[in-house]
């Protein structure tokens, strides 16, 4: 739902034959467990959901904020969640408030988001960016992102990795992660959830269970640790057990390419 997802960098990693977008789709798909109820966004998260469903989470169910619930995948690539192929064969096409009710009552395991900015505590900005010269960039806004970030069991975010997109603190907090750190969610009254994973074009960040701060958990092939650190707007900590991000398998790649044959989303 966020334009940020459209801006994911289109560079492919030089030594392998997959694009960065494909890697991100694969990494995102691995965050979905079987039987989970998933609040799916468009673009890469949708492909990740479809991939997971095909390979390791056949009984995962997709919820879309327009009111659509799908157990079986659509037969065509979607450009919006309102495309007719996303209705045909859906399990249920109901009101937005009904689907949001499932979210609000804690039935959604995981939600996927993009954003203009994400900060150290996993807060997202999809509303307004104030640049250093004081000028503003108006982003499209929350859509359902702030609701999903408030109410889903956990949040996976997909982002382009750059210093200006990953500030220490978002200039506008659209979608709550851990706010200012431990216990913030409880203090403001949020009943569950929080940022679980941040998949960028350079690595995968996770959140420390105590400090709630994002740390680097895996690093993508051919990405330099120093580069990641310099392209992050705060002093990024790394896992004691920092590893390479597992490469996509041939099977994963072939499904992704079947899902997006013209690389509209995964170029």
């Amino acid at each position, binding site marked *: 739902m966020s334009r940020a997802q459209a801006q994911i960098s289109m560079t492919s990693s030089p030594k392998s034959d997959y694009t960065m977008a494909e890697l991100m789709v694969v990494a995102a798909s691995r965050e979905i467990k079987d039987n989970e109820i998933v609040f799916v966004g468009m673009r890469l998260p949708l492909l990740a959901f479809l991939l997971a469903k095909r390979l390791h989470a056949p009984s995962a169910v997709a919820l879309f904020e327009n009111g659509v619930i799908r157990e079986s995948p659509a037969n065509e690539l979607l450009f*919006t969640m*309102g495309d007719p192929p996303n209705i045909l064969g859906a399990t249920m096409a109901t009101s937005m408030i009904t689907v949001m009710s499932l979210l609000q009552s804690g039935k959604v395991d995981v939600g996927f988001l993009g954003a203009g900015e994400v900060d150290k505590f996993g807060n997202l900005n999809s509303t307004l960016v104030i640049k250093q010269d004081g000028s503003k960039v108006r982003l499209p806004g929350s859509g359902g992102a702030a609701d999903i970030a408030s109410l889903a069991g956990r949040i996976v975010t997909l982002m382009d990795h750059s210093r200006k997109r990953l500030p220490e603190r978002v200039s506008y907090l659209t979608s709550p992660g851990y706010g200012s750190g431990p216990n913030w969610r409880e203090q403001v009254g949020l*009943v569950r959830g929080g940022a679980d994973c941040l998949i960028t074009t350079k690595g995968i960040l996770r959140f420390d269970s105590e400090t709630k701060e994002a740390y680097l958990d895996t690093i993508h092939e051919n990405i330099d640790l120093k580069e990641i650190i310099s392209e992050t707007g705060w002093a990024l900590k790394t896992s004691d057990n920092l590893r390479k991000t597992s490469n996509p398998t041939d099977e994963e790649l072939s499904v992704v390419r079947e899902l997006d044959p013209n690389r509209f989303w995964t170029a």
Partner: protein
Amino acid sequence: MSKLISMSEAIKSFVNSGDSLIACTCMEQKIPFSAGHEIIRQGIKELTLLCPISDVLYDQMIGAGCVTRMMPAWVGNVMMGSAYNFRRAVEKNIPHPIEVIDYSNLTMACAIHAGAMGIPYMPTRSLLGSDILKGNDSLLEINSPFDKSERLCAVKALNPDVGIFHVQRADKNGSSHTWGNIGITSDAALAAKKVIIVAEEIVDSAVIESDPNRTVIPGLVVDAVVHDPFGAHPSPVQGAYNRDHKFYTDYHQQTRERDGFKRWLEEWVYGVEDRSDYCEKLGRDCLNSLKIKVSRPAVATEFGY
């Protein structure tokens, strides 16, 4: 009772400058573009536009100078990203400044739900800690009356002056079947003070009454019914025509700059008289290419006794 009138009459009679308007209630499907374009042609100004997700219709109305206030959860080009007129208005006051009061999808849905239900507000568990809540006077932090330790966001009811809804079929009294994406349509039709139905097809009431569970809007809340086939183009209408992706990508490219938008507006809005004229301009080949290719009727449902 027949409420069937032309689009031009419907807009003239039921939309006034200064009104608040809700029109994109199915999100990316069934967007009433033909109504929005007529609003632009009639030079209606100072509108407040409400929506959960606005695909580019609201962007066009902003660029045409009809809008002074937005109350949206999301404004953009869903497939492509930015809505450039919206950005120009907010970032550079072009063509004039607009006020933006941000919502999320759920809080907009709750505001309209409360408006439909005739209650002054709805509580939600969303947006606690979000800057959206801080910047919107219609969102208040409250405690549950049943457990004072439980924090909630109270969302004030919204009752827009006008609601415009594109549906697959309606009778002349306005009772409407619509399917596919529903979004917040049902609530919005109850919440709005005046309702305009734009229908792909006008049908006998017996068609509506053959399947009362398919009725999403009852005629008793409807003020005008307009028959405007292809009125939702370039957005899709389930079972009638598909989304014109190319039209959205072209719009995106052509409206990056203000001048490009002005040319677009001249060509597609000012340059045509009504939707039938617009369809002629689109051309039969384009329309045919968008029509559904494979029939997938709903399974039969028995209402007899």
